[in-house]
């Protein structure tokens, strides 16, 4: 299969074949990271720009390492959306970057749809590294890769996603991806954190964590943004953690061999109790980080014509 897409803006747009191709390509890159010399010349002479309008050390580092392992020249640009006249930066920056003729632009932005706008403005390939509460396609791909490795398959699994669904781009991308790949996706969170009509995405929705994780093969816990408390969507962290924290007690409702995932960084004791988060029998959180580099290598490779 030839990968013909110019941009990776969201999992919503990807076909099952495309997802499989990305995951297979990523698997082939996984080994490079275990070598002593962790570098191949595949993207020598190519330029990747990491354009981050929102701070994210993890995702940015992961993209940077991915680019470097493929011998691409990677450049990081951190832009603040608050210090300049809003929006103008994206357009202006885009035009400037285009003039420098990079091959791929990776963008992280707090505004949903910003990567789509960028993609209409420049001829280079765009990878969405997270846009507002919309999508985070590379996170979903690395999550799918992790699940596939741990469970041998995605189809037929029950995956519970727990937390603030409303503000989570990780949840949206995973709902699209996992559903396409045949998993049964179940959500749970306080009613104030469940966006309207989310069940139309083909998921089951619960307001109690326990109802969602029964017999789950995968439990994915989302990060709570502490500042959301100001919007009154939950009364206190104390009450949230009492009812939505995954712990050694409620995890027993899931399947014995269930795995626990988290996009990081974790608020230990809020989303996941420390004993579960650090228990290698459950937690695959560090595997996720490891897969992240491979998935991003795969996307850089495929978007620069690697499948040709």
């Amino acid at each position, binding site marked *: 299969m030839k990968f013909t897409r110019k941009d990776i803006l969201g999992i*919503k747009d990807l076909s099952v074949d495309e997802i499989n191709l990305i995951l297979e390509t990523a698997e082939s890159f996984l080994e490079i990271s275990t070598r002593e010399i962790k570098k191949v010349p595949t993207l020598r002479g190519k330029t990747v720009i990491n354009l981050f309008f929102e701070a994210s050390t993890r995702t940015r580092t992961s993209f940077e390492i991915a680019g470097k392992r493929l011998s691409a020249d990677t450049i990081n640009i951190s832009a603040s959306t608050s210090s300049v006249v*809003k*929006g*103008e930066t*994206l*357009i202006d920056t885009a035009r400037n970057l285009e003039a420098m003729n990079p091959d791929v632009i990776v963008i992280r*932005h*707090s*505004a*949903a*749809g*910003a990567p*789509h*706008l960028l993609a209409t403005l420049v001829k280079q390939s765009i990878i969405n590294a997270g*846009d*507002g*509460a*919309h*999508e985070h396609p590379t996170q979903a791909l690395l999550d799918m890769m992790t699940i596939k490795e741990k469970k041998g398959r995605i189809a037929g699994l029950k995956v519970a996603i727990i937390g603030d669904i409303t503000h989570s*781009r990780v949840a*949206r991308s995973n709902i699209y991806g996992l559903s396409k790949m045949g998993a049964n996706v179940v959500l749970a969170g306080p009613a104030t954190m469940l*966006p*309207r*009509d*989310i069940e*139309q*995405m083909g998921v089951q929705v619960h307001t109690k964590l326990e109802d969602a994780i029964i017999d789950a093969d995968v439990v994915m816990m989302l990060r709570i943004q502490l500042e959301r408390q100001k*919007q009154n969507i939950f009364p206190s962290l104390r009450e949230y953690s009492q009812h939505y924290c995954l712990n050694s007690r409620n995890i027993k409702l899931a399947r014995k061999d269930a795995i626990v995932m988290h996009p990081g960084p974790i608020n230990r004791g809020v989303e996941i109790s420390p004993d579960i988060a650090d228990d290698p029998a459950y937690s695959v959180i560090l595997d996720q980080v490891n897969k992240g580099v491979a998935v991003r290598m795969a996307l850089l490779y495929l978007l620069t014509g690697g499948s040709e």
Partner: protein
Amino acid sequence: MKLLLTGARVIDPAQKIDAKMDVLVENGKIAKIGTGPFSTAKTKDAGKIKIIDLTDMIICPGLIDMHTHLREPGQEYKETVASGAKAAVAGGFSSIACMPNTDPINDNRSITEFVKRKAVEANLANVYPIGAISRQSAGEQLTEFWDLKEAGIVALSDDGKPVMDAALMRHALEYGHSLSLPIISHCEDTNLSAGGLMNEGYYSTILGLGGIPVSAEEVMVSRDILIAEFTRTGIHIAHVSTEGSVRLIREAKKRGLKVTAETAPHYFTLTDESLQTYNTSLKVNPPLRSAEDIKAIKEGLADGTLDAIASDHAPHARTDKELEFEYAANGISGLETSLALSLRLVNDGVLTWPELIAKMSTNPAQILNLPKGTIAAGADADITVIDPQLKWTVDVKTFYSKGKNSPFHGWEMKGKAILTIVGGEIKYALPSLNL
């Protein structure tokens, strides 16, 4: 110069006229209208009379857009009174009312007089300023309604800055009513709409954009109706966008309350589903709603719940719209597409021709107490001529408005104003008419 318009179908809901007639214009007024002998006397006045053959065309009272934004003073790069008035006549509107949210806000006599002077200088459409309800539209202190009225405002509104203080709204209704000044309410509970960028529903959920619930509009429609009822006054609801608002207004009218309402063409044409490409030309407040809401808006127009169609013309510069969706300005440049989009309601059988003309001329004149909206003998000669069959394609590059922000760019339309006469003078004529 006299004008004799012959051969057209004349529709004037105020006179209950819908027939083939001739219209004679003299000294800025309608001199005669009918099928009488002046039709046959065409040739007698040869040389002193301009005869325009309008066979197959529709003649109606000059259209009135009761909700526009002209941006002057303060944001002349988006629109001026003159460019807005030019867009108005090109869109078939002989009169427009303009909202006070300029910079500075039209909350005092000097701004009102300034806008009126600019309109006189432009000498195109009649421009009727709407004054602010509260100073700076800050929702705290009433403006000087009396003084504003003397300066020439026709209504009051804090459009764009909803009146959240119910007591302030009460006092505005009472004080405004005593001066025969209608209050136009932009119904939006800003606590419920906080952080919202589009209609709240499935599409806001998948796009990850903050939602504006229909209830943000409906609780305020409900509140304003109740306050108007208690104070024995009236209220005009601007840009109705939801099924629930239509239901509340219908029920209020049934109870005999003096409630009137308008909607805008985009609210019966587009849904939130169209936002999936983050196209900022579709960003508007209130937001585009669902297919069920569109259905209810059409029913509300058909049964008379919604009295008027207004464009909510909101021109913006390219730099205000070519942004991330979150940062882009709200609004659609609507003066030059409003009539054609509304004509689709006639073509689709939602409204009859006279009903459409009533909603775009007769009723807005009545709501704003304007001596307009009819072409009875003796009335001001404000006339719009529509070619109901003319096929054309929307091209924002040809807009007279400075605002090229239209989601209808490239749309195929049927029906267009080909001639706009204001005070007996031709202010717009389709170039191909060769007048």
